[in-house]
């Protein structure tokens, strides 16, 4: 992901994968919105990066897992970054905390100077 067009592509890809495992419309919307926030963070805060979207299975359930990775500055204070309304730039500071709320699983791996990787999963019901 290097441009705003790529964020649109990620949204579309996540949507079509979510439809393929028949996520409910509300769950699709939540997942796509979370992915949109994280893809934008990768671009805006990470500089550029990649997104990987896949169908996963566990205990007879299907889910969509999306991983957003960059080799940008990393996040020094994760608790702060996850505080709703906190932003280091001119944003609303809702992307990270909001994305976490919208999905079933949310994991961040970040290291200052090395980069950030955020993985989210939404399971079908």
């Amino acid at each position: 992901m290097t441009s705003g067009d790529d964020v649109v592509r990620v949204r579309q890809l996540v949507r079509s994968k979510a439809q393929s495992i028949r996520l409910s419309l509300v769950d699709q919307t939540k997942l796509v919105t979370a992915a949109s926030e994280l893809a934008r963070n990768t671009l805006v805060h990470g500089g550029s990066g990649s997104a990987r979207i896949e169908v996963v299975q566990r205990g007879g359930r299907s889910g969509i897992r999306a991983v957003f990775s960059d080799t940008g500055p990393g996040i020094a204070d994760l608790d702060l970054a996850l505080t709703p309304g906190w932003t280091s730039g001119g944003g609303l500071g809702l992307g990270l905390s909001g994305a976490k709320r919208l999905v079933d699983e949310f994991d961040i791996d970040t290291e200052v100077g090395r980069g950030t990787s955020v993985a989210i999963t939404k399971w079908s019901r």
Partner: protein
Amino acid sequence: MTQQVPVLRLGDALLVSIQVDLQDDDVLALQEELAERIVSTGARGVIIDISAVDIVDSFIGRMFSSIAALSRVLDAETVVVGMRPAVAITLVELGLSLEGVRTALDLEKGRAILDRLIAERRPAHDLDYLDDDADYVPLDDPAGERARPDPSRR
């Protein structure tokens, strides 16, 4: 911007119907274009139709708030219409409050809200005042160079 989103006139309002998945730069361009169009057309209202929009994230949500604030400064009102239920549920969970943004379920209700807001902005006594003022313009001083009458005399 290559007209990703057409801006149409609807009486004294502008109608923006978002039909495609906009990237962030297009969202910003739309915001600028709207500001220009409000000024160039003297529009009193803006209706943003999002019935075809399948997600509202923090970026586009912030754009709605910006347009609402911006239009108010330019003497116009903004109403966002047609939000899908799944979008509304997601928006609330995301924590987005759409501060300062009026919403309506559909175009018709949005138009009614606009009409009311526009009427509130031009209270009837304002028009009375203009009439009274006109009565006072002396024929030998049509531009009103001399002292204006005191509008509070009523």
